[in-house]
């Protein structure tokens, strides 16, 4: 059974005019224990909203979950009381964001911030036990001189160190699922490589599952077991990380790869540039949302919205690959 199973999730935003518009449209995916699922897409595609919807962290009342189920170990998180949800959030499911500075309290020492998490979820533990655990966590995430850092304030740490503190806080309760939303985007590649190695190591040790959200195709391909590609609020392609980018089926996935410098493009050669814009939420087309930018688009694409089809039935059922495109068979051949 999957640890987390998202079924037909919809997120809508209510504009000033009172009209609800859908930003995330009926997306479904599942993550098994110990596995990493990568959610990749360009800005505005709805990947972060998906993460926030899972944890009920959407900015209310403007944004709301307007449909679907979020099953965590069989329980629908959408049906839980706020109190019951708080028990899961931070304890069973933890989250780290792109900018650790805005997620950390600037006027509190990091040791106290970690202990606060422990207090909330393990109120019976003594202060000394919690302090020892905080020290252990900082050591685990590779912070040099952890005993001194317990008394440091966030501004005294570098960006990479702050992100390590965030990871330490997220791991404090040994979550079964870690949601990481662009955790390395603000960091240098050398520090990114350190954080990615750390996450992989911790995952091996604790067996936690991960939902890794990023715009970086290469990074997601290195980290994930499965990858979902999002475009304009929908998952357009899903499959095992090993094959998704080597045999992309959806024209959007194909164009993303063709636009990426380095990936098999001779230097100074023109990259494929995807013309046009993502459709605005005010006038989402009835048909395929990528049709206006797709070089293969035909009449059917403008008329009807493609549903996800199994694109590779050679794989085991848990590995299944799918694509939401009317024409993928003819494009692939």
């Amino acid at each position: 059974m999957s640890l987390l199973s998202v079924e037909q999730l919809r997120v809508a935003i209510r504009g000033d005019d009172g009209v609800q518009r859908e930003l995330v449209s009926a997306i479904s995916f599942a993550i098994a224990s110990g596995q990493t699922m990568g959610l990749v897409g360009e800005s505005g595609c709805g990947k972060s909203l998906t993460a926030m919807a899972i944890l009920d962290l959407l900015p209310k009342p403007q944004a709301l979950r307007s449909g679907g189920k979020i099953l965590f170990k069989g329980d629908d998180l959408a049906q839980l009381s706020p109190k019951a949800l708080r028990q899961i959030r931070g304890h069973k499911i933890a989250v780290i964001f792109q900018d650790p500075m805005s997620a950390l309290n600037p006027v509190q020492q990091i040791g106290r911030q970690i202990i606060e998490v422990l207090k909330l979820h393990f109120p019976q533990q003594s202060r000394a036990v919690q302090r020892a655990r905080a020290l252990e966590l900082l050591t685990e995430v590779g912070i040099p001189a952890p005993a001194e850092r317990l008394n440091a304030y966030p501004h005294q740490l570098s960006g990479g160190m702050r992100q390590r503190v965030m990871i330490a806080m997220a791991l404090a309760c040994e979550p079964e699922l870690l949601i990481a939303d662009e955790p390395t985007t603000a960091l240098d590649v050398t520090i990114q490589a350190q954080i990615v190695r750390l996450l992989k190591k911790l995952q091996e040790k604790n067996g936690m599952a991960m939902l890794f959200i990023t715009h970086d195709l290469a990074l997601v391909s290195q980290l994930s077991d499965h990858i979902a590609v999002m475009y304009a609020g929908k998952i357009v392609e899903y499959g095992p990380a090993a094959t998704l980018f080597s045999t992309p089926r959806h024209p959007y996935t194909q164009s993303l790869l063709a636009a990426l410098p380095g990936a098999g493009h001779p230097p100074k050669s023109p990259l494929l540039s995807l013309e046009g814009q993502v459709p605005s939420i005010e006038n989402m087309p009835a048909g395929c949302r990528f049709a206006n930018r797709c070089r293969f688009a035909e009449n059917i694409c403008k008329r009807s919205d493609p549903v996800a089809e199994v694109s590779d039935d050679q794989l085991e059922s848990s590995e299944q690959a799918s694509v939401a495109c009317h024409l993928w068979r003819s494009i692939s051949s």
Partner: protein
Amino acid sequence: MTSNTISARSSASDLATNMAGDKPVLTVEDLQLHFSQGGGVFQRRRAKLRAVDGVSFNLYQGETLGLVGESGCGKSSLAKALLNLHKPTAGSVIYADTDIAGLSDREMRQYRRALQMIFQDPFESLNSRHTVEVILEEPLVIHKIGNRESRRQRVADLLAMVGLPPSAASKYPHEFSGGQRQRIGIARAIALEPEILICDEAVSALDVSVQAQILNLLLAIQQKLKLSIIFISHDLAVVRHMSDRIAVMYLGQIVEIADAESIYSSPRHPYTQGLLASIPRLGEASPIDAQISGDLPSPIAPPPGCRFHTRCPHRQERCEREAPVLQASDAGQHLTACHFWPEIIAKQSA
């Protein structure tokens, strides 16, 4: 007006000639840019932040020189020092036989025409209360080029060149997407037909598909105008795509400079090796052995000796004492600032 004609050249820049033996359009020698830090009422001593600390290189006609390094390594400070946006503390920047380093704003004005820059966030660098037409016309007005009518025509040509519709002229910057704004930034930078364009993280804020459009545009414009470009980015894949030669910076200094192919296929400096090993590659695991640990040390108190020794997996005792010089070991144009790179390479290929 003061202008220092240069007769002698340092050995480092002589070595850094390119294959074709072209004349450089820009020669940078031992450039330094230091900032004073702190020094408030209660602090007796002001600390010195060495953002750029002895950088020398040549930029040749029509080439793109990529500049890479982690944030805080001094790439953007170097760009600003080249254009006198921050006055260099020492060293020279020679353009058209004149040392332009440290010229006053008024003296610099005649050179601004030839040296232009585009920034990461075009929204912050475009005046939000002016229409695109006014923004693009402004450099022409300042440099007293043409009359009103010919300037309007030039604006229309510029918009066409960067792929924006003529209707864009009457709009304001906030009406455009990030990619379109960067097109406006490019149009403004090329309005005066510069010889040298400095791109500071010009595509870093853009999505992959938009980034590809802007990179294509830059390549096309470079061809058309025969521009020499200094291309600064933290994205090593983008830099490789755009550059003929690449300089790798670490804590205010260039640690390796060579043609793009050599840098990527046979990096010599352990820092370059570690930086390249850190780039995630599609569907490939990254090599473990060349990875860099730790953070960038503070440029206020850079480590003695080789500045990279605190993070270097190959450091030896000499590295802590003696700063390596950027030099070629053979007759080639591949310069490396490392005492032990031949040994390191030999060990790695064994």
